[in-house]
């Protein structure tokens, strides 16, 4: 054992001794004392060594070398004696609980298997930690980049030049961060001094001590729940995380920050109410010491100390702690924090060349603060890093797990334990500390003088490292405490009883695994819309998005004077109108786009609620949850690719919900809501004509009347109720019709040059009968077939089955009302689908005739959106078949349904024209296929595109049939099928997003280069940029993306871009962007692209010889 090892041993043992004495003085005993001694020990020892080194030099002048082993041991003895004397003087600890009753006895401890697995995880993690430490120490003997550049070099400065250390630090370049505090380098230098030389083991061992201490502290905190296995799980998560191991073994200071942060937080939280059952409070003196060490560890540590103390004050005052007791804690906290905080103060004043703020605020900080986009980018990047993809993959999948656990912990506080006394102020304090710390990074990254993305990318992982362990510890502690609650607690409040009575006995049934997973999925989806929308680099990608954005600019800034667009497409104005106010208030276009995207996707998330509300109204059944999850997953992905379609999906789903309400409640306001939502549908997408399918809803009015009166046949007695239902249905139809007419009347005022509506109306009117008769059926079947690998694969057969067998759907209600409603709903949806499909067929016929869109998949995603109500019905059917197994679904019937699913799918697959497969696999079927298409690809049974082989055609129908069989069967089969379904959806989602991200990169490069050139060369583009518009008008299909680039340039430079059809007339007068070739020099062109910019001709004067005489006036 080298002297470095001995010095490390001495430091850590001294720290453990001091921690033990302080904890005993605070009333801890037994295993808890041992756990916290191990957790706090390394920090105390290393902190004492570092502070001793600093104060001896600063206050006493010091010698040639830092204080050695004797001085350190003397300081330890003095402090230990002080603690003992203080303990003796204070008498019996006020909080010391009687031994053996530290925790409330558990009636039902964790199962043995869980405990064994937990300790096994910890053992494997610890082994991984040691191996990782050994390997990284050998590979990086001097430490990682930061260790060499910042921390270890300072340790050497302190050790080798102790006497003149302040002078040496002042001379160092700012890249070495001489203003960073000295916890880590001071501890290393002090150990070197104790060892008598620069032992190469010292710095790695110091890093290991922090890493080990961090894990042990996490263990101690989580074990406070009363379940040590939770401590083991928490420590295993920390020690087994690749990012923790990488940075923890790299001799950097970020893990020391995490460690001190957790130490201070754990103590402060333990002083708040709610921890009485978990051993009571920890000594506030220790909390103060760790807060001081936190500030002494890194510059951001001071900010974290301020956050912790501020939040602690708020929480202590808010949650019933009286001022005297707060003050009683404040004194030892302050006393403990003084050494560290004083060291920081003296260091900044006497040692450091500057505080760090000077560097940070250099340049023009106000400009950086006032740039809204600089605030948005950190938010986006912070969220992106939580997704286990790309750079976030360095964390494994830890973040979703920890955040899911945090959500569960919050639910445990707010939902499971309803009584106020059971809510845990310490837990909310813990969460607030994490949230405030993460939020504090945003202004830092916004104001940073360095390259913003460079700064974020370089430091975000290390910042997350500072909060990851405390989050793991807090989540495990909270969940452990919730698990440790006596399971025989009194039953719920009367409110829950009423709820159970309202919804029936199923309310009390235990949750099944698929439902748990589906719930997690739904919650994940809600987060997804924000995370993924921030993550996908698809801005400026699609023609549609460009058009909406430029139109929003047009509306917001020019009052709707019109923007050019290809004649074959026309976009309704609602998304742009929603976006325009954001632009009007001065938000830059890219950020306004993102804000709009987030808002629209939040709307999309709400369609989950609409879906399960529909399910509840029609079936009153739990499967609405699973339906919601599955409904939301597949179409949401496609919708996410565009800005406006989330609005479309949300409006569509909500309109269906209010229509069901109209049927059930017969209220005028519901009919108004349907009408207005359908109007929004018309005004949202170019495909607003699909809302013509809403005729089905109106037509269903007659059926509704018939059903409401319970009259068979075609007689409609004009009763009051019948009249009312008809009026409501006319109202819900009239609103969108009036809206569409108004839009048509006023629309031309802000879209000069737009012809398509008349064109389309005429075209559809002329073509409609023929096309509908000959092509619509085939088209619709093909469209449905094309997504038959997906939701329709099992939803359509089940929905049709339910339509036929609707009378059995709800035998519980007795009067068949729900069954009638479900049948009516399904009939309307199918009619909607048929009408829309017919119109889509007409459109596609024209599109192909005129070669506008040589695609076969345009309508596909709408078909997928319309699957939402089908899925609701299908899951209602599945559920009813399970629920009423004896009365409704015999094994034979379930087999028949599965067989029907197999045959229908097989028929549809054989019916699909080959081009649909090619376009579908490349385009939209894969993301919409519940993962089945991806699965085929993964196992090598389907190629990238156009694979119509045997397996591709038959595996999916077989799988759909099996799913149907499973979902209608008993517990085991249902769980298995549900799990498969959910897993497929999850896999599909992540793979699909990954695919999208790789596809979208680079498509906007050329537009961004134009924009940057215009920005960077104001002289060159002083006269603007002429864009040869017909070039872009002629683009079709995939090439239409080129037109999107024009929009990009327009939105970036709306005052400079002129769009026209006569580039020859402008050549030489202003820069011209065109695809045509002219015999002139070229200003800009791009490899592989036909576009180029021709510059302005130089002024004549500059062409004349320099010596030419100036003409006289």
């Amino acid at each position, binding site marked *: 054992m080298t002297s470095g090892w001995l010095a490390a041993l001495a430091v850590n043992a001294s720290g453990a001794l001091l921690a033990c004495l302080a904890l005993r003085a605070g009333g801890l005993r037994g295993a808890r004392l041992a756990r916290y001694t191990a957790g706090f020990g390394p920090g105390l020892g290393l902190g004492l060594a570092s502070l001793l080194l600093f104060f001896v030099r600063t206050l006493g002048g010091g010698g040639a070398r830092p204080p050695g082993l004797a001085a350190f041991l003397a300081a330890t003895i003095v402090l230990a004696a002080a603690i003992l004397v203080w303990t003796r003087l204070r008498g019996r600890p006020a909080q010391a609980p009687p031994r053996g009753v530290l925790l409330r006895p558990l009636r039902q401890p964790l199962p043995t298997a*869980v405990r064994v*697995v937990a300790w096994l*995880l910890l053992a*494997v993690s610890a082994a*991984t930690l040691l191996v*990782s430490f050994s390997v*990284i120490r050998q*590979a*990086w003997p*001097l430490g*990682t*980049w930061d260790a*060499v*550049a910042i921390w*270890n*070099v300072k340790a*050497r*400065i302190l050790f*080798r*030049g102790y006497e003149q*250390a302040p002078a*040496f*630090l002042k*001379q160092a*370049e700012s890249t*070495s961060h001489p203003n960073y505090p000295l916890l880590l380098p001071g501890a290393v230098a002090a150990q070197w001094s104790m060892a008598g030389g620069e032992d190469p083991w010292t710095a790695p061992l110091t890093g290991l001590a922090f890493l080990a201490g961090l894990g042990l502290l996490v263990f101690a905190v989580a074990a406070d729940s009363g379940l040590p296995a939770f401590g083991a*799980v928490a420590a*295993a*998560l920390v020690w*087994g*995380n*690749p990012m923790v*191991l*990488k940075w923890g073994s790299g001799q950097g200071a970020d893990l020391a920050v995490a460690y001190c942060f957790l130490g201070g937080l754990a103590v402060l939280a333990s002083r708040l109410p709610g921890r009485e059952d978990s051993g009571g409070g920890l000594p506030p003196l220790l909390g103060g010491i760790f807060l001081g060490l936190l500030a002494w560890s890194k510059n951001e540590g001071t900010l974290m100390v301020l956050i912790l103390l501020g939040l602690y004050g708020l929480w202590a005052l808010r949650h019933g702690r009286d001022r005297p007791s707060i003050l009683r804690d404040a004194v030892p906290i302050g006393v403990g924090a003084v050494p560290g905080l004083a060291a920081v103060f003296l260091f900044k004043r006497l040692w450091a060349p500057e505080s760090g703020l000077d560097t940070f605020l250099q340049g023009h900080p106000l400009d950086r603060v006032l740039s809204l986009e600089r605030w948005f980018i950190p938010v986006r990047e912070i969220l992106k890093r939580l997704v286990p993809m790309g750079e976030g*993959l360095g964390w*494994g*999948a*830890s973040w*979703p*797990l920890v955040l*899911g656990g945090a959500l*569960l912990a919050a*639910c*445990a506080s*707010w*939902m*499971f334990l309803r009584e106020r006394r059971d809510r845990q102020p310490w837990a909310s304090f813990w969460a607030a500390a994490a949230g405030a710390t993460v939020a504090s990074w945003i202004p830092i990254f916004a104001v940073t003088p360095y390259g913003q993305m460079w700064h974020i990318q370089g430091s975000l992982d290390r910042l997350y490292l500072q909060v990851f362990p405390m989050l793991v510890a807090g989540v495990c502690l909270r*969940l452990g405490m919730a*698990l440790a609650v006596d*399971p025989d607690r009194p039953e719920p409040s009367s409110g829950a009883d009423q709820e159970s009575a309202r919804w029936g006995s199923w*309310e009390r*049934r*235990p*949750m099944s*695994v698929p*439902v*748990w*997973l589906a719930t997690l999925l739904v919650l994940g989806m809600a987060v997804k819309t924000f995370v993924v929308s921030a993550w996908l680099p698809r801005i400026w990608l699609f023609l549609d998005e460009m058009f909406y954005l430029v139109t929003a600019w047009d509306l917001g800034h020019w009052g709707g004077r019109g923007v050019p667009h290809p004649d074959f497409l026309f976009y309704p104005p609602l998304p742009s109108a929603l976006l325009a106010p954001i632009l009007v208030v001065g938000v830059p276009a890219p950020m306004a786009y993102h804000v709009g995207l987030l808002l629209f996707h939040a709307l999309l998330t709400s369609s989950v609620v609409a879906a*399960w509300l529909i399910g509840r109204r029609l079936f009153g059944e739990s499967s609405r*949850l699973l339906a919601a999850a599955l409904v939301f997953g597949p179409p949401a992905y496609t919708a996410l690719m565009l800005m406006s379609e989330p609005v479309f999906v949300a409006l569509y789903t909500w309109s269906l919900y209010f229509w069901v309400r109209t049927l059930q409640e017969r209220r005028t306001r519901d009919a108004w809501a349907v009408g207005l939502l359908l109007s929004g549908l018309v005004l949202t997408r170019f495909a607003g004509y699909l809302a013509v399918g809403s005729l089905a809803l109106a037509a269903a009015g007659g059926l509704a009347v018939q059903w409401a009166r319970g009259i068979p046949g075609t007689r409609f007695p004009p009763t009051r109720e019948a009249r009312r239902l008809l009026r409501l249905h006319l109202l819900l139809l009239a609103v969108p019709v009036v809206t569409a007419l108004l839009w048509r009347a006023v629309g031309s005022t802000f879209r000069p040059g737009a012809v398509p509506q008349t064109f389309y109306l005429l075209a559809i009117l002329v073509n409609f009968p023929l096309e509908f008769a000959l092509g619509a059926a085939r088209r619709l079947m093909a469209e449905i077939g094309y997504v038959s690998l997906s939701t329709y694969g099992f939803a359509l057969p089940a929905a049709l089955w339910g339509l036929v067998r609707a009378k059995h759907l709800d035998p519980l209600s007795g009067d068949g009302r729900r069954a009638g409603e479900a049948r009516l709903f399904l009939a309307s949806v199918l009619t909607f689908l048929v009408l829309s499909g017919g119109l889509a067929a007409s459109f596609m016929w024209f599109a192909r005739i005129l070669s506008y869109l040589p695609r076969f998949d345009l309508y596909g995603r709408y078909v997928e959106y319309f699957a939402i109500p089908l899925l609701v019905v299908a899951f209602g059917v599945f559920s009813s078949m399970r629920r009423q197994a004896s009365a409704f679904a015999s094994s034979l019937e379930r087999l028949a349904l599965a067989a029907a699913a197999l045959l229908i799918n097989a028929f549809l697959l054989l019916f699909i024209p080959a081009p649909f497969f090619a376009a579908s696999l490349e385009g939209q079927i894969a993301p919409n296929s519940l993962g089945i298409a991806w699965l085929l690809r993964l196992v090598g049974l389907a190629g990238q595109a156009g694979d119509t082989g045997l397996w591709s055609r038959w595996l999916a129908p077989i799988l759909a049939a099996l799913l149907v069989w499973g979902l209608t069967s008993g517990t085991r089969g249902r769980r298995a099928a549900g799990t498969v379904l959910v897993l497929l959806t999850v896999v599909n989602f992540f793979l699909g997003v990954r695919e999208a991200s790789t596809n979208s990169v680079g498509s906007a490069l050329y537009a961004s280069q134009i924009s940057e050139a215009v920005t960077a060369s104001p002289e060159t583009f002083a006269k603007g940029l002429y864009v040869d518009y017909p070039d872009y008008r002629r683009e079709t299909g995939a090439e239409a993306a080129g037109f999107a680039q024009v929009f990009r340039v327009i939105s970036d430079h709306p005052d400079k871009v002129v769009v026209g059809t006569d580039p020859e007339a402008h050549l030489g007068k202003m820069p011209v962007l065109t695809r045509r070739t002219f015999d002139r020099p070229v200003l800009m062109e791009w490899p592989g692209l036909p576009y180029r910019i021709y510059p302005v001709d130089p002024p004549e004067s500059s062409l004349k010889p320099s010596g030419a005489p100036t003409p006289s006036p």
Partner: protein
Amino acid sequence: MLRMVESGLFMSLRLPPLQPRPWIYVWLAVLVPVWAFGIWMSIQMIVWTRSSAGLMCGGLEAYAALSHLPPVRPGELSEPRIRFVTDVPDPSASERFFCAQYEAAPHALARIWPPGLETRNLSGSRVILHMDDPAVLQEALGKVVIAAERQKSGMRTDRLAPGLVLVTITKPGRSEPAGPGTPR
């Protein structure tokens, strides 16, 4: 908002009231594969680290010579920082700089670049030159000589390792005879 979630969404999802246990067990069940994935990633990192030699300061072992710089006479220097010049562009130059500073500690290093070296005021300072190419090193030394002569300063050269040279340029008036290896 939590109230809304509690009363609306969650109750509709039929979460069992006052029964957190099933949920927490689900979380624990999910935890195991997530943990295993983390361990697998850690092992990947370890394997990668083992196969990657010299990640920081690798190949710069010669810098150990900077830990024992030859002493200077009192009053010989006016610039406490040691100038550092290398011919490798960033980012590798940063690695060289930080590794050199680490070895030369407690002395602080200041980066300068070869272009214009002969025009700098190097009087009373020390310069570490690290050039891989001997010809480039010789050229840089020549520039230092020009700078020293222009400022009428003395100069001492210490070859610490192949390609690594420490040049001490004394203040004017403290001229020293050229040491061995000094290009003249």
